[in-house]
């Protein structure tokens, strides 16, 4: 029977279904009506057990008859399943970022999340990519081609945007500006990771893990072994689906 995991994020909704060992996943934009979007994703397939995580979990779980768990637990479960030896997770999503330290058996030992500020999240990349007039998906590759190194003074999404504008005005190389933006996030994530004291194999998850430049910079700063799942966005939904199967 089918077990489903939903990760209702602020920007995208992820669904993972497990039919025995047969795994399927889908991603859709959250939009203005997340509950409706979840129903559409599930379609007529139905499920026997559902676990919901993400920012919208308390809205969706009761309506669809599922159990709600935090993103922290969901990402821990998903990461441990994909990489059984991993000891930490770094997740950078649309509006938040988190760092989780795991014990050898995959349970959460300690975690940190950003506060209400969007610095260091996917949102930061989106806003600045728009200013640079570059699609957010190619920002990472652009940055990897930088020939110069500059530093950004501000980590705040609002101030960084105006800083980027003035760098453009000064005629800075676009790739160098893009690299500086990645640096800024990596510094922030690295500081957060140090507060959580992570070590060992670390899973980089969330939409931002698709960005190769970011992963490389963070791994360098922390001197850790970093692994990136094939589908980094759906790790939380996978964790939820695994929990649903466990309770089946």
């Amino acid at each position, binding site marked *: 029977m089918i077990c489903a995991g939903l990760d209702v994020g602020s920007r995208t909704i992820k669904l993972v279904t497990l039919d025995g060992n047969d795994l399927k996943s889908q991603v859709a934009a959250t939009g203005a009506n997340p509950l409706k979007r979840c129903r559409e994703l599930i379609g007529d397939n139905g499920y026997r057990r559902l676990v919901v995580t993400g*920012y919208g979990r308390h809205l969706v779980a009761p309506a669809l008859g599922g159990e709600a*768990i*935090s993103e*922290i637990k969901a990402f821990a479960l998903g990461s441990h399943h994909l990489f059984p030896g991993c000891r930490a997770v770094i997740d950078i999503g649309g509006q938040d970022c988190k760092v989780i330290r795991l014990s050898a058996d995959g*349970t959460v*030992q300690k*975690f940190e*999340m950003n*506060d*209400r500020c969007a610095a260091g999240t996917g949102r930061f990349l989106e806003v600045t990519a728009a200013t640079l007039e570059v699609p957010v998906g190619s920002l990472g590759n652009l940055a990897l081609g930088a020939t110069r190194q500059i530093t950004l003074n501000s980590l705040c999404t609002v101030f960084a945007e105006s800083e980027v504008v003035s760098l453009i005005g000064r005629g800075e190389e676009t790739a160098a500006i893009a690299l500086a933006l990645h640096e800024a996030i990596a510094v922030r994530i690295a500081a957060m990771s140090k507060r959580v004291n992570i070590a060992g194999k670390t899973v980089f998850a969330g939409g931002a893990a698709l960005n190769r430049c970011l992963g490389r910079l963070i791994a360098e700063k922390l001197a850790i072994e970093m692994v990136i799942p094939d589908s980094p966005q759906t790790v939380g939904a996978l964790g939820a689906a695994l929990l649903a199967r466990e309770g089946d």
Partner: protein
Amino acid sequence: MTTDNVTMWRELDIDLKSHDRLLGALGPIYQQIYLSQRNRPEGMGFFDFVVGDIHGIRVRELREHAKNGGKVVATYCVFVPEELVWAAGAIPVGLCAGTQFSVPIAEEVLPRNTCALIKSSFGFKLGKICPYVQASHLIVGETTCDGKKKMFEMLGQYQPVYVMEVPNKKTAASRQLWLEEVRAFKGVLEKLTQNEITAENLSAATQLTNQRRRALKRLYDLRKARPVPISGKDALLVTQVSFYDDAGRCTRQVSALCDELDKRVAKGEGVALEDAPRILISGSPMAIPNWKLHHLLETAGAVVVCEESCTGTRHFSDLVAPGSDGLDGALNTIAERYMNIHCACFTPNNERLDDIVNLTKEYRADGVIHYNLQFCHTYANEAVRVEKRLEEEGIPLLRIETDYGDEDTGQLKTRIEAFLEMLRK
């Protein structure tokens, strides 16, 4: 709302329009956070009643007192020795400053990156919405943090303010300084009230406050039971009310509540599930109506069993020892009692770290939440040492920094739920 109240508020120069909005907002919040709880002790009825008429009855009592020539002295911090106030025939009230409502008003003047407690209190005065502030003859501040120090200077433009100097260290010289401050405060009160503080009236006042401390201690001791007989929210409310209610009445009401809880404990009756994670909260004070963190925690299925804070154990944990030789002796023991408060304004403040560890064990807490108001530098920085110490002790900790607003509720929920999942495993 009775017309009597409105007349009184008008006499106190309250901004009635904005005051209406404040009370109008409080009702539904209280309903949602408090009255919807299940299996509450009956003894909470008194406290519900007090909050239900929060700007009525008690203010009227203070006004009566003033009409008979008595004085009202407002305070913001548990460092101000209230025994002296009672002894001088005045009534102390701890001001609340726990609402977002008055923050925007304060931000018209104060820098935004000031802690919510300071902004809230200043906004109450600026906006003329707190009858307790309006009814007081003297506001007594202290030098426990820089933001408050400067706020008191500005507050002084509106109303008489007196500031006590709380030292930053606990050396012999600091203790001497504090003793002098206590003595000077005695003089200030005598001048204000035209009453002399004597060994006799001070001893009577000390008994009054010690009794209330004992009653609160008894209430907290009952929270050590498993299952816990009273919710963290309710216990916090009792502590908050004890800051402005009459001390004698408060003692009686808390004692009656404890009698009821005794029976609950004997029967093994509790307010939360047996396996609900038990949480100790440590950090900045939570002034009424700041119930945000407790509400989030208890809604998520945990139960708060103790607060290591000034709206918690620091408020009552030490009694004033009986003084030996007359007035001087009494002033000495009072000064000593207050120097034993383990506030983050002291350096070093290792005793607080010990307190947290000991209380966690005593109250059988499964985890600790370190709570500090945003922009409160003393507690935010001390949290680093708290974290290290608890890690050594193997006690799970979650650090939360927030203010009175609601915008971060979603984030806080996620972090709190993840923490509880960690404790439950």
